[in-house]
């Protein structure tokens, strides 16, 4: 039984053979780039690694707390569980993911268009915004002036530097989009009537989606929280700032995920010897995320100030997201199957074992995809309205998002780094065997960890809580679930440490690469010649997305306004 071994009905579009460029001591497949074009890409990636390192270290302290060993009195700088947890969330959910997106989407935009970014100034500006924003937010948290979690719900009031840092991190992503759009315009001038290359298209839609989505957080911080923290505004409406937060706070998960989708769709097939399944469906999947922005209220089913009508409308829209996820499941698995069969795989499942599992970049992304299947299913549970009453704000949610952003995204970023760091530094990957062990350690760890968190959550374990000291801990039967969380978390920590051994070993590796470094660009089975042209009209789709968001959130605001601005900033930490 083979599904996909038929010859392609439409001839695949040839991928142009790369000519070689020498970047200092090593060669890459983009002859049009110089070191100055690649340097910001590399330093955005290093900033992502710093975010990951901080997050992994805090994760260790949290896992130990679940195991019964409270280390916060023994470690320097981090005074409390909640201060560490805030650093964990900000470093991973904002710094790690945003910086990787800035780095990876810039690199692939250049590769897709076959030209450097239009503006070196914007490249540098984005880089500086990212580093400065991280420095400000990190200082605020480490000085214990912003123990507000990465969601910073008012009336918890952080020091102004925290909000300015968050703004700069978001601005760094806007500057990347601006640069992509300038590059698109320049490319269109030179390629009149041509289809936007798929890799550049998906990279641009990712950043465009997040730009539209981030307007909620931008208004929340710039109009309300920052002036409020500076004393220019006496009080804010905590329900309203939550509505603004979650307008961005749901699509932020698309922003974490879509750079990984770009890799799964346009690169991973090449890495396993398969082809991208369908150009058109890939574009449609990315556009669906652009259109389905206004679903944030499904994070607020239990909020008192939002009416039943808004919750119902956005619940139904949320279910729409399942559709592109299932298209992705089919398309990516089809590409993998094609690769596995070309490598000699037979039967229903034999192709899986023939995939190049000894390549850490492939193994990590395959395991990340498996975790995403579990994470996606649990996401459907979270979104399921009445079922949400069981799991909302419990550790079930924590289990869910460590499978999705923590592993589908986080482990994929680590796996992509295994080809990207050699590409950007000209150094050979250090200890590839250890890198394979690393991705397995993370994967096994997260399965145990998520099992514990989800089990506990269904039994009522709250999230964001110093659990072993909770007054109600002994009254509930949570011991086994908590043990799973602790053990799984510690195994993930081992996986995290191994990642830094491999990456630091690579950056400082004395052995340089001898062959040309190549981005694994996949060919397309059903190419853009059979794809609707209208999918490339990004301006039109942007207008439709904005109108849809205005209509759906207009319904929320029509019920909600006027504001109840009653809360001054409070610092209960």
């Amino acid at each position, binding site marked *: 039984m083979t*599904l996909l071994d038929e010859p392609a009905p439409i001839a695949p579009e040839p991928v142009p053979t790369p000519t070689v460029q020498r970047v200092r001591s090593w060669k890459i497949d983009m002859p049009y780039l110089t070191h100055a074009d690649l340097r910001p890409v590399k330093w955005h990636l290093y900033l992502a690694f710093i975010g990951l390192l901080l997050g992994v270290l805090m994760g260790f302290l949290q896992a130990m707390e679940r195991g019964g060993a409270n280390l916060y009195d023994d470690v320097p700088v981090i005074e409390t569980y*909640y201060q560490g947890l805030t650093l964990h969330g900000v470093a991973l959910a904002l710094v790690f993911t945003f910086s990787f997106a800035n780095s990876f989407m810039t690199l692939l935009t250049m590769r897709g268009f076959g030209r450097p970014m239009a503006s070196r100034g914007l490249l540098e500006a984005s880089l500086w915004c990212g580093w400065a924003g991280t420095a400000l937010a990190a200082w605020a948290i480490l000085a214990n002036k912003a123990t507000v979690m990465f969601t910073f719900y008012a009336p918890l009031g952080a020091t102004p530097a925290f909000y300015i840092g968050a703004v700069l991190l978001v601005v760094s992503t806007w500057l990347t989009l601006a640069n992509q759009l300038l590059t698109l315009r320049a490319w269109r001038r030179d390629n009149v009537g041509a289809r936007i290359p798929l890799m550049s298209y998906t990279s641009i839609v990712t950043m465009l989606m997040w730009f539209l989505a981030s307007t909620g957080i931008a208004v929340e911080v710039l109009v309300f929280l920052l002036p409020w923290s500076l004393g220019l505004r006496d009080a804010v409406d905590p329900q309203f700032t939550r509505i603004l937060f979650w307008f961005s706070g749901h699509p932020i998960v698309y922003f974490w995920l879509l750079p990984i989708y770009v890799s799964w769709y346009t690169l991973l097939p090449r890495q396993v010897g398969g082809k991208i399944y369908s150009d058109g469906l890939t574009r449609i999947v990315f556009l669906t995320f652009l259109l389905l922005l206004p679903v944030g209220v499904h994070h607020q089913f239990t909020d008192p100030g939002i*009416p039943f009508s808004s919750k119902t409308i956005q619940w139904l829209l949320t279910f729409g997201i399942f559709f592109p996820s299932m298209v992705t499941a089919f398309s990516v698995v089809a590409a993998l199957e094609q690769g596995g069969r070309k490598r000699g795989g037979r039967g229903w499942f034999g192709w899986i074992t023939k995939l190049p599992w000894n390549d850490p970049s492939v193994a990590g992304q395959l395991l990340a995809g498996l975790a995403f299947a579990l994470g996606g299913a649990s996401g459907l549970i979270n979104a399921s309205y009445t079922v949400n009453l069981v799991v909302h704000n419990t550790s079930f949610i924590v289990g869910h998002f460590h499978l999705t952003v923590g592993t589908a995204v986080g482990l994929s970023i680590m796996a992509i780094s295994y080809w990207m760091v050699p590409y950007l530094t000209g150094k050979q990957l250090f200890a590839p065997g250890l890198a394979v062990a690393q991705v397995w350690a993370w994967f096994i760890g997260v399965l145990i960890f998520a099992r514990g968190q989800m089990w506990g959550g269904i039994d009522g374990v709250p999230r964001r809580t110093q659990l072993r000291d909770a007054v109600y801990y002994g009254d509930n039967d949570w011991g086994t679930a908590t043990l799973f969380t602790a053990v799984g978390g510690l195994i993930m920590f081992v996986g995290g440490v191994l990642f830094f051994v491999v990456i630091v070993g690579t950056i400082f590796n004395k052995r340089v690469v001898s062959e040309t470094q190549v981005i694994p660009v996949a060919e397309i089975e059903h190419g853009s010649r059979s794809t609707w042209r209208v999918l490339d009209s990004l301006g039109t789709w942007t207008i439709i997305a904005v109108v849809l968001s205005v209509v759906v959130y207009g319904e929320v605001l029509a019920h909600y306004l006027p504001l109840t601005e009653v809360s001054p900033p409070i610092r*209960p930490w």
Partner: protein
Amino acid sequence: MKIERYERWFLIAVAVALLLAVAALLATIAGEHAAFPESSERIDPALISSTAPFDQPGVYPRDDGGYDVIMIARTWAFEPAEMELPVGATAHFRIASVDVVHGFKIPDTNANAMIIPGQVTELEVTFDEVGPHSVICHEYCGIQHHIMGGVINVVGGEG
């Protein structure tokens, strides 16, 4: 645009599964009276302790056999923190926060709500199991968030 035969059938199956899930959830909303927390009024957190009914938190019997529970959430306690209700009783909670955002969760029931300054959180909970039930603040509310809890003792023998 070309869509493979297998993929077309797969997508149709996904769409059907989603519609069935929506139908099942609609049935639970209509049939089980799954009550989402709502707010019929707004309140200034600074005035809560001098505004009825929150000036006198506690448990009050209703004419319909249920109970009104008037509750205040503050860093880091519920008031009242302990209460007793008969098994099978429906409690009509009205909860307001005097400071930051708090949470309200009772394991093994449908009780799950946010308590947001400026809003009055209203929800109905029916207690079917005898014994102590933890009341848990499940939103981070400051450095002692984990000591914010209460107990509802559900006692048997009524009706």
